[in-house]
């Protein structure tokens, strides 16, 4: 069984190429595919795949272009996690599922310094484990499903969570209660303007993730819909509260932030 592990630029830039190499040391048999030029350059692995205007679209295009049966994404700070997962989670036993996750749900709240996520955050079963967090992107997905699923007009992380939601709705999500190493703790937000901007961006990402999933749920007639909705809606409302407060804190500054080129 062939597995492709997709590495976007930000994954590599965030944790550094040495850490990526170390994490992948035990991942023999996994095709590594760099989706951005920085990843390809720092790892010296083939030509980068660049297709599509957004990160998510580039990832999907790259995944479809492989000849692997399963594909895995590497969120920015999860390279090691995903690589181990591909080897350990037992894709071969997926029994009809096309979306498989492992026991890392809730890992954003993992103890500082890494280590095992709290036991209560590791739950079996696709729907009860579904928190809508980006953590589900420690997932592997059957490549052929990427080709046949109706496209979502969500982009970015919302598109990936929309994919996970579709898997949950169709009952094709296998969650393996198999804890793996928690990701590195995220950097503190800092203080002042940098802290406010960082908090706004972090909370916005969370809301974007959940928006992607909820839009899929809203238009679904699956029997699993109500259960998932009850699970996700309170999370979405809390995320929306957190983002609006973070954004308001920025907007109340004497000089409002504006959308300007980064760097």
């Amino acid at each position: 069984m062939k597995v492709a592990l997709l590495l976007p630029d930000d994954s590599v830039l965030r944790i550094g190429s040495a850490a990526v190499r170390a994490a992948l040391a035990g991942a023999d048999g996994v095709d590594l595919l760099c989706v951005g030029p920085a990843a390809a350059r720092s790892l010296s692995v083939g030509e980068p795949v660049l297709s599509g205007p957004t990160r998510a679209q580039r990832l999907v295009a790259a995944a479809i272009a492989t000849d692997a049966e399963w594909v895995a994404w590497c969120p920015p700070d999860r390279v090691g996690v995903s690589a181990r997962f591909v080897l350990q989670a037992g894709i071969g036993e997926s029994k009809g599922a096309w979306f498989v996750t492992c026991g890392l749900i809730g890992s954003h709240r993992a103890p500082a310094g890494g280590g095992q996520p709290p036991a209560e955050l590791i739950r079996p079963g696709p729907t009860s484990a579904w928190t809508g967090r980006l953590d589900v992107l420690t997932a592997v997905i059957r490549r052929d499903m990427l080709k046949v699923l109706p496209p979502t007009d969500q982009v970015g992380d919302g598109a990936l969570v929309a994919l996970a939601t579709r898997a949950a709705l169709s009952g094709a999500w296998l969650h393996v209660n198999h804890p793996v190493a928690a990701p590195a703790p995220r950097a503190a937000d800092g203080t002042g303007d940098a802290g406010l901007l960082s908090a706004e961006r972090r909370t916005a990402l969370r809301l974007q993730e959940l928006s992607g999933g909820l839009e899929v749920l809203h238009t679904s007639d699956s029997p699993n819909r109500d259960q998932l909705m009850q699970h996700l809606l309170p999370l979405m409302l809390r995320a929306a509260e957190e983002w609006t407060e973070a954004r308001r804190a920025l907007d109340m500054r004497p000089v409002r932030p504006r959308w300007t080129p980064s760097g």
Partner: protein
Amino acid sequence: MAAALRSLLKQDHDDLEILVRDDHSPDDTFGVIQHVLRDYRGPHHVRADRNERNLGPHDSAWRSLMEATGSFIVEAHGDDISYPNRVREVASLHARTGASLVTHNAHVGAVPGPRNRLLVEDAQTRELPGRELVGQSWSWAMLGASFSYDKRLWTTFGPFDMRRMSLAGDHVVPARAAMLGGCWFLAEPLMFWRFHSQQSTALECGLRNEDPDVTAEAKGAHSLPAQLQLLRDLQAVEAAEGPSHVRDALRQNVLVRLMSLSGSWSRSRTRLEGAGLRLQVPKGEDG
């Protein structure tokens, strides 16, 4: 400002209490107010105050609201001209319908004149149902400058928390009214509403930007808090009065609107970030 104030002094409603408040303006606004009122000998009871510091429009208006002795309040902004029958007409509709909020039509332009257009063309006086107020985007029938309300509309829910809310009071107040005695729109134009392309609040908040994604993203930043506020409001009313079918239906409308808003906001934001833009304080302006 002087013209706006004089239009209030000319109201033909009996027994009117007029509370004028200057929010610590840096110019001579309070001097203008004092000058206009100095020679007033009409029937209305008039009081003018100046805040000791700038409170912002919401908190400043809240202070006047708490000092008002009447049970029905008509808002009048500093650059709009009320027609003489404005207060009488809205108070009459409130008395007939029991509406918690009355909004009304207006003439719109940069300066008063015969060519000004109507705020709402082909308007009809009607109740604005809750599903309309929360199920669709903001409409001109919800213009805050035309608000008149039962004081209980505010005492029931309390003031807005400005750490959470921005311009979106116009979205929330009509829906709050629908939770209580209803929201009515009066078709007759009852004021001149000053509007021009450089309206500062909209520009400052990015709500009129050349890039449609910047505008859409800013719209999310202003509209999502309003929907969240409505959910809190529904919870507060239910805690006091128990559940009702009307409020259940309203909640569903709010949730659907929240999902729709967050979806379109998310797409706009991702497109901006995909284009290499970041929300940041421009260099050189960060103090």
